[in-house]
């Protein structure tokens, strides 16, 4: 990720501070920075969220489409992720520099939502083998201020939580094929059940300790990171190692325990925010996009 040039003395001050549990801005090792959410950042989508945590700023937008299911999994819908690391976020992302990171993040998200079994994709199926919902999730990184993957995972969960799936009211028979007809009523839709989907907690190792929500400076002083996917009840669904570094089994166990407690807390807060956002959206003027009638 974006690395900045730091002097030996700054690194010494930072690393020793983490050891004494007093980080550069006074936080302890398990404290998060301040953040906020903006609803409706993007108008021509089915739902969008702009999330900020410290200096990190991302926008996530979802678009719901009609599609055919994967032949290997004919009774499930699909969620596709696309990450764009904009060059404005960091000089490292100029040209194709951001592509490697973008791919990595896409992979982490796909594993969290596809394979971990915490979201039931069968709910997205309309007609097995023929029609299903395809949700395209687009993520744009506006500013990289440290802890990028965590902020993206939080914003994605919020965005999927407020995503409105239009209800199918029937089938229209066209040359013998049954094509789903969607309701034109603005208030007839279903929400996706994302309560159990995981949130990523990245723990870089600074000195001999792991820190939560690292800033850019702290990431530049870290030797490798461990990214954990954590559900609201503290269950760890995935572990990813990023960067260079090796860990002893004891360290990984300690990090897993830390991620589990912190992640459960974060995930529950996100679930509460999803409820508030759904209410807020209903009270505001709903302007959903119309669904395409044919594929």
């Amino acid at each position: 990720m974006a690395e900045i040039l730091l002097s030996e003395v700054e690194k010494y001050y930072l690393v020793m501070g983490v050891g004494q549990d007093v980080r550069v801005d006074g936080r302890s090792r398990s404290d998060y920075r301040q953040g906020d959410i903006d609803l409706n950042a993007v108008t021509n989508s089915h739902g969008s969220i702009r999330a900020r945590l410290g200096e990190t700023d991302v926008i996530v937008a979802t678009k719901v489409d009609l599609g055919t299911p994967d032949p290997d999994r004919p009774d499930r819908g699909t969620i596709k992720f696309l990450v764009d690391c904009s060059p404005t976020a960091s000089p490292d992302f100029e040209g194709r520099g951001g592509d490697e990171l973008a791919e990595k993040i896409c992979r982490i998200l796909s594993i969290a939502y596809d394979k971990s079994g915490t979201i039931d994709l069968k709910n997205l199926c309309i007609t097995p083998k023929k029609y299903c919902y395809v949700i395209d999730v687009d993520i744009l990184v506006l500013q990289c201020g440290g802890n990028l993957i965590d902020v993206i995972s939080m914003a994605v969960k919020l965005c999927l939580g407020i995503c409105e799936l239009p209800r199918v009211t029937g089938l229209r028979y066209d040359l013998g094929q049954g094509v789903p007809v969607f309701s034109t009523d603005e208030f007839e839709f279903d929400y996706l059940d994302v309560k159990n989907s995981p949130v990523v907690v990245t723990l870089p190792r600074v000195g001999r300790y792991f820190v939560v929500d690292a800033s850019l400076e702290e990431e530049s002083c870290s030797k490798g990171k461990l990214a954990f996917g954590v559900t609201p009840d503290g269950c760890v669904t995935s572990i990813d190692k990023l960067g260079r570094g090796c860990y002893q089994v004891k360290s990984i166990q300690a990090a897993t325990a830390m991620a589990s407690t912190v992640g459960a807390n974060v995930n529950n807060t996100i679930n509460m925010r999803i409820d508030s956002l759904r209410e807020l959206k209903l009270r505001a003027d709903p302007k959903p996009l119309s669904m395409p009638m044919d594929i």
Partner: protein
Amino acid sequence: MSAGSGFDLKIRDGNNEKNTTLPTAPQNFVTPGTIITREPGFMRGHGTYVFKDGSLVASVCGTVERVNKLVTVKGVGGVYNGEVGDVVVGRIVKVMQKRWKVDINAPLEGVLLLSSINLPSGELRRRSAEDELAMREILKEGDMISAEIQSVYNDGTLALHTRSVKYGKLGPGTLIKVPASLIKRRKAHIHNLPIGISVILGNNGYIWISPLANGRMPGTNMEQDETDGQKPVLEEIKITGTDRFAVARIKNCVAALSKAWLPIYDTSLMYSYDCSMKYECKELLKPEALKEIGELVREQMSTEGYMA
């Protein structure tokens, strides 16, 4: 306190965010493109240009100042343009032949010549070829320094020097960047605050906060007769938790002042430090806390007449 309990994501409501405490714009405030005068006979200074019809137009946001026939616009924001005598905090970015290039938040990198520093051994002698080869041992890429601007080259490049005991390589501490226009030119820029923390308010907007005296790495850039041949060792410098909290608090106070667009100097910093004592250090990261401190300091300073 359970882990991660400080986590909170607020849903922003656009209506609640209207800023009701904006100060009124001063007289003669102009924006780029505003015609200052159509009358001929005025000399254009910084921040102005002559339009094709002969009128004088402002090119920056700021206040118009007139001295006899010279009209200038003193910019309110914008990039740092150094002047001789400014104290700056910079980061070494390149080691070249007989000089270092320094990032000082200016349009061009500053230059620190090998002849503009005090040799570590404290001797006064001509720099030799061996000195040139040993430059990286004195200052290498990434190192932080405090320096004074010696001169300005024709192209605007700033030449720095550290020929004084109070300047030189900086020791353990932390950097915070603010807009350069918030740091006014004062008599002293290196402050050793009564709370045991030193703050260097660089004119270029880089602020160095450190628990060491003058922010400096001990054992470097010493007076001629103070050298005892010992090289400073980083690992021997111990910093207590109390000092770290003080540094963090000052850092958050600087962020509060910067957010409220208040000038930053030792008095405003100490005011904000006192105001911040009712919060825990990490609570200062909350936007409400920052806003409150900004308002309290603004009030205190306007009653004491500092806002002139």
